[in-house]
């Protein structure tokens, strides 16, 4: 796929499973919006075929567009009343005149904006306008729903409630959806399936839990928020658990098949529990316990992010809640023990790693 003469996306294959929400995620410039624009038939791939239910989409562009519905980052409404915006779209999709009004009102109501039906589209707030855009898209009852960062321009409270409503409707209708987003939380919340693009190539796809906890490579790990990525050398393996030596100590990792001799060991910061060294609380199932010291404490939204210095110049990032921070009376320099389960760690086979 090219834009401005430059190849921005190379996809050998990409499929959005029917009846599911596929989130296309990736950093800026990863090609995710280009992918969506191609599905919207707004740009033409240089090579390859796009199909909808088995039929090439570009054979009948108008017919294809009338089976899809798009919502963009900004609500793009026509300069007319809210209800007429929906009715006009239904008209373009050849919905009989007599049905348009009821259908428009039904979807406006479903999105909670039926009270604004007679208002002019230009008089709405950002959140209201985006609800109208979504109502218009759902009212078209498309075979394929294409969403380009539809929640990213909204303020946080508006966004949260709209995402909740959207999630409920999308489950209820079972419409096949492709959602482009750079927001990981949004993908986790809404997607059945995640496709991660970086630098114009598909790096990983699968269920969100897999992509987010078992990244395929270090760049994917960095994007999905796996902040601990340590080079590890295999020490041994038994019963589906491999032991890798990483800077800071030995770590047990649950593996699938044979363990690679060298790997990058990944752990999400929120999977790590912190305790004081002399802690004698209830025993935990965490197999991995690494001693360290607090090197830095940084606020991270509702949580606090701790940078820990481990043995052998190892570094670990962990998050914990403010009450936990206060209960443990942690400050820079405090000694502690970081623990996590073998199942919370993931090993990416890696040639360059050495221990």
């Amino acid at each position, binding site marked *: 796929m090219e834009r401005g003469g430059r190849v921005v996306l190379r996809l050998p294959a990409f499929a959005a499973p029917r009846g599911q929400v596929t989130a296309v995620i990736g950093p800026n410039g990863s090609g995710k919006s280009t992918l969506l624009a191609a599905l*919207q*038939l*707004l740009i033409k791939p240089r090579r390859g075929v796009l199909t909808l239910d088995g039929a090439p989409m570009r054979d009948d562009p*108008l017919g294809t*567009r*009338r089976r*899809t*519905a*798009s919502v*963009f980052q*900004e609500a*793009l409404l*026509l*300069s*007319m*009343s809210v209800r007429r915006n929906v009715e*006009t*779209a239904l008209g*373009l*999709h050849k919905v009989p005149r007599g049905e348009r009004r009821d259908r428009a009102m039904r979807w406006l109501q479903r999105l909670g904006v039926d009270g604004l039906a*007679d*208002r*002019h589209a*230009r*008089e709405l707030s950002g959140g209201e306008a985006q609800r109208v855009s979504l109502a*218009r898209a759902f009212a*078209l009852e498309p075979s394929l729903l*294409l969403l380009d960062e539809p929640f990213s321009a909204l303020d946080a409270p508006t966004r949260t409630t709209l995402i909740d409503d959207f999630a409920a409707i999308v489950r209820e209708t079972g419409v096949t959806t492709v959602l482009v987003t750079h927001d990981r939380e949004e993908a986790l919340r809404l997607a059945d399936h995640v496709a991660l693009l970086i630098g114009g190539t598909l790096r990983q796809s699968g269920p969100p839990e897999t992509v987010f906890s078992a990244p395929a490579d270090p760049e994917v790990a960095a994007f999905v928020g796996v902040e601990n990525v340590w080079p590890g050398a295999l020490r041994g393996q038994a019963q589906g658990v491999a032991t890798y030596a990483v800077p800071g100590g030995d770590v047990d990792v649950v593996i699938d098949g044979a363990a690679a001799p060298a790997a990058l060991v990944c752990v999400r910061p929120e999977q790590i529990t912190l305790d004081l060294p002399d802690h004698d609380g209830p025993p935990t199932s965490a197999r991995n316990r690494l001693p360290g010291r607090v090197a830095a404490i940084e606020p991270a939204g509702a949580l606090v992010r701790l940078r820990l210095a481990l043995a052998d110049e190892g570094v670990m990032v962990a998050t914990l809640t403010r009450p936990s921070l206060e209960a443990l009376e942690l400050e820079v320099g405090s000694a502690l023990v970081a623990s996590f389960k073998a199942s919370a760690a993931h090993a990416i086979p890696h040639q360059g790693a050495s221990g």
Partner: protein
Amino acid sequence: MEFLWDGLREAVKLWLSGDPEIIEITLRTLGISIVATTVSLLVGVPIGAALALKSFPGRRPVVALVNTGMGMPPVVVGLVVALILWRSGPLGALELIYTPSAMVLAQFLIAVPLVIGFSMASVQQINPRLLDQIVSLGASRPQFLWLIVREARLGLLAALMAGFGAVISEVGAALMVGGNIAGETRVLTTATALETSRGNFEVAIALGVVLLVLAYVVNLIFTGVQQQRRPA
């Protein structure tokens, strides 16, 4: 100053008497201007929209040509149309010179660059993402153009007012290709010029005021449409 008041008094008398000649000239003026403006809209709006939406080699010189046309002296248009329609000219066989049709043609040529220019500007102001959204909603080409025109309607009404304003107030070309023939091609502007040159100031004032009132009323109607309250 005396003759100015006399003129005004005389003008009021003329209107009140319902002078048939004034009524006839007024109706002809309206007719020619409306036809010329309508044709210039039918031709100019699609061209303006196309210039706004499409990029093609040579677009820039075409846009420059339109911008020049917007300021073109009507006398030059009159000269060109007169030369073309002259009995020995390329279209002389049509025998259109000194007819209302010739005036419509000249006025169309004066109005159409204005309509194209204003249409182009108003369509260019539409958010390009909205154009993508309209396409993605499954609009066919005619539906797309209709929705674009609808979105740009405020600007297009400005195009209409500019075009109509130019043709109803124009005198040079009307005189040159119409000939100001009484009962045939005499319009308010040419009649006003004639009466002024004859020293019939009261008639000239009466005609001038009718022209002003006419232009005002028509623009009042357009403005009313343009500034219509949005649905509450």
